[in-house]
């Protein structure tokens, strides 16, 4: 059966009589991605895992985790407190500690298991890898049950039934999910923001219909901000996050009843059946005693849907898990997505680098030869852009200046890199002996002509290698643009790796794609160095 039939009570969520969709993985929360290089580290980690796999070991570190947890009297749970209300977040009264409904749940659960809970911070989309590495005993962080994860890990029985909530501008045309079934203003599709690779993402893409254009955000509140800004028409959110953050966005209203649903579960390593059973028993006691209900009520999370918790077991979830394709077949199935994302990456870099080079040249010339006020201003320009993160600059362009994502992405990269290019050009220009400028001036050239005809052409030869270097760096930095809804290659990797469990396969495929795109750049650079070096030797001086 396709659906969790029997587990799935009739929901108020959809316009038609279709059964509710099975929901897919998603990072539920307000996820400000940590620095993007972490993602690249993730790729590396993926490759490292491949090596481990090749060695043929099915990782089940340490025989009996439950026994160890009890003897050490510590149950380590992996979670990410970064922007994660109401799940786990810094305690406002004691910011060094965490609070949230999952924190309290773990306190009770650990007690049931016979240990003390210990929180271990991890990046959200890497938590299961931390579990693999034996750094934590369990993962709990709004991770929903999915078939793919069910294959690779042991899932506990659900501890929460979550639903999706549409949020739209108060008093606007969208008052419920069904309003999206008709064309938007002027026949346009509705632009609906979702957390990338979340259940809402899957739901909107599969169930949105022809008039819904899905816009993917890296953080739950980012999508809400975009609706408040008028950049998109509505956002579909996990109900708990929507409830937690609704006060922060008074201009948004809940549009209609929740739609779709899914289950949060706790994941254990595949070999830890005893630990999983202990956790299931603990959850059962918390559910039966009503402790779980009172916990959820304290957080305003209790609703009728939670009644289902008593009937769900981990076995019922697992009953339907079956293995999907792996290896090359998996990559082949998702190749079109990877290629689309590569295209986004190429357009972003090819669009922004020439601009960065032009702006950088102007800035370098201004810093070297401009009047004093211009020099001071441009020094400030370079220092500010180099000294602040690209991601922040993209946020400013997208959320404050409200530029369209493509414009913000290309402009952000161009402006950010122009500061680096400017410094490279400055170094290149300063490497040209003063006698060259003097000789040009003595021939009656103006300063600007001397720069154009004599100084810059010589400097260009010097700066080709470092500029190529930057081009390749920019090429990979395009991954930061995922914070402004552009799904480029790294983001696509992250999405696919998480939704299919093909961490290793997609790490390899993505790395190959990056290499396939950056190596020709290096070739081009060496070719142009040779060509420029040789052009003079052949003469052709009148050009």
């Amino acid at each position, binding site marked *: 059966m396709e659906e969790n039939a029997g587990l799935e009570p009739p929901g108020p969520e959809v316009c038609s009589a279709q059964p509710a969709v099975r929901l897919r993985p998603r990072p539920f929360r307000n996820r400000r991605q940590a620095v993007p290089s972490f993602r690249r580290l993730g790729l590396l980690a993926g490759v490292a895992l491949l090596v481990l796999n090749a060695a043929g070991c099915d990782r089940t570190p340490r025989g009996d985790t439950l026994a160890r947890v009890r003897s050490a009297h510590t149950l380590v749970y992996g979670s990410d407190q970064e922007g994660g209300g109401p799940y786990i977040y810094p305690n406002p009264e004691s910011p060094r500690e965490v609070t949230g409904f999952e924190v309290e749940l773990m306190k009770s659960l650990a007690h049931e298991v016979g240990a003390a809970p210990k929180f271990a911070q991890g990046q959200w989309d890497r938590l299961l890898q931390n579990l693999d590495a034996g750094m934590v005993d369990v993962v709990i962080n709004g991770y929903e049950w999915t078939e793919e994860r069910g294959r690779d890990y042991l899932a506990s029985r659900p501890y929460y039934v979550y639903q999706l909530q549409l949020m739209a501008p108060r008093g606007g045309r969208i008052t419920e999910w069904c309003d999206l079934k008709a064309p938007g203003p002027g026949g346009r599709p509705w632009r609906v923001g979702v957390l990338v690779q979340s259940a809402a993402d899957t739901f909107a893409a599969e169930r949105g219909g022809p008039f819904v254009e899905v816009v993917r955000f890296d953080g739950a509140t980012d999508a809400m901000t975009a609706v408040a800004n008028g950049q998109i028409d509505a956002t579909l959110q996990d109900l708990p996050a929507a409830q937690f953050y609704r006060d922060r966005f008074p201009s948004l209203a809940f549009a209609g009843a929740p739609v779709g649903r899914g289950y949060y579960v706790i994941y254990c390593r595949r070999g830890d059946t005893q630990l999983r059973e202990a956790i299931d028993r603990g959850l059962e006691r918390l559910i039966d005693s009503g402790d779980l209900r009172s916990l959820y009520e304290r957080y305003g999370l209790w609703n009728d849907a939670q009644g289902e918790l008593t009937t769900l077991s981990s076995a019922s979830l697992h009953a339907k898990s079956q293995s999907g394709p792996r290896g090359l077949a998996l990559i082949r199935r998702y190749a079109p997505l990877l290629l689309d994302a590569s295209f986004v990456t190429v357009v972003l870099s090819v669009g922004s680098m020439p601009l960065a080079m032009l702006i950088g040249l102007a800035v370098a010339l201004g810093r070297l030869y401009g009047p004093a006020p211009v020099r001071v201003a441009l020094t400030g320009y370079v220092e500010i852009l180099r000294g602040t993160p690209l991601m922040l600059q993209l946020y400013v362009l997208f959320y404050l200046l409200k530029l369209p994502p493509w414009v913000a992405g290309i402009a952000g990269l161009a402006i950010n890199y122009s500061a680096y290019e400017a410094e490279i050009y400055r170094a290149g220009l300063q490497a040209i002996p003063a*006698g060259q400028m003097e*000789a040009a001036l003595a021939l009656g050239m103006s300063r600007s002509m001397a720069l154009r005809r004599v100084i810059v052409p010589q400097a260009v030869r010097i700066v080709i290698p470092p500029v190529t270097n930057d081009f390749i760096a920019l090429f990979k930095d395009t991954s930061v643009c995922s914070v402004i809804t552009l799904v480029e290659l790294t983001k696509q990797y992250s999405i696919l790796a998480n939704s299919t469990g093909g961490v290793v396969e997609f790490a390899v495929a993505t790395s190959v794609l990056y290499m396939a795109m950056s190596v020709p750049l290096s070739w081009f650079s060496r070719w142009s160095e040779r060509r420029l070096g040789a052009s003079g*030797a052949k003469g052709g*001086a*009148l050009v």
Partner: protein
Amino acid sequence: MSAFMIETSDLVKRHGSLEVLRGVSLSVRRGEVAVIIGSSGGGKSTFLRCLNGLERFQGGSVTVDGLCVDAATTGSARSAVVRQVCRSVGMVFQGFNLFPHLSVLGNVTEAPVHVLGLAPERAEARARDLLDRVGLLDKVHAMPRELSGGQQQRVAIARALAMEPRAILFDEPTSALDPRMTAEVLSVMADLARDGLTMVVVTHAMKFARQVADTVHVFDGGRVVESGPPDQVFEAPRQEATRLLLAETSVAA
């Protein structure tokens, strides 16, 4: 039209508290070859660079071919006049300063095409004539780095001549060359002098000064201490500084 091609009056140049030029008044007639000698640090090169605007100065004035720049001229007015001056007065540097990214031909045609607006074919024809004159017609397509120092300096002279200047300033043109290459370059310069080109030459080549100069000026401590025809300056120096300088160079030679 003034008989003087170049005229300075009371030229003062300071680097901070250091006075490099302490009131230099000197004039060069049209067609005259003026040679400036003097020990190092005497202000010779600085003086030359003040003539075509490569250096600014703090007092006095420079008049070149009727164009006057004084210490008070600044900003765009100054750069406009200086550019005019540079169009009519060429310069040859100690370090040649050829454009390394351009061929020999490119070096010689660059300014005529882009500054004077000459048609490329005409500029190239002129460049070939000039390169023939300095004996480098076979190097037209060579790159500067492929040439010896003497050849490079001859290209630099051709480059200056291509602008059809009224005068050329030579800033120690042979100081970076060995004796054989020095001879190549000096013979080209002597040739130009015979043709009546106005030349101001800063040099340590005393023999050249003696044979080619119309007037020799001796710089010492930022002043012109003695001026006169070469025979008089070399045979009967009136100043102690000149005598010392000549004694040093003859010992050195």
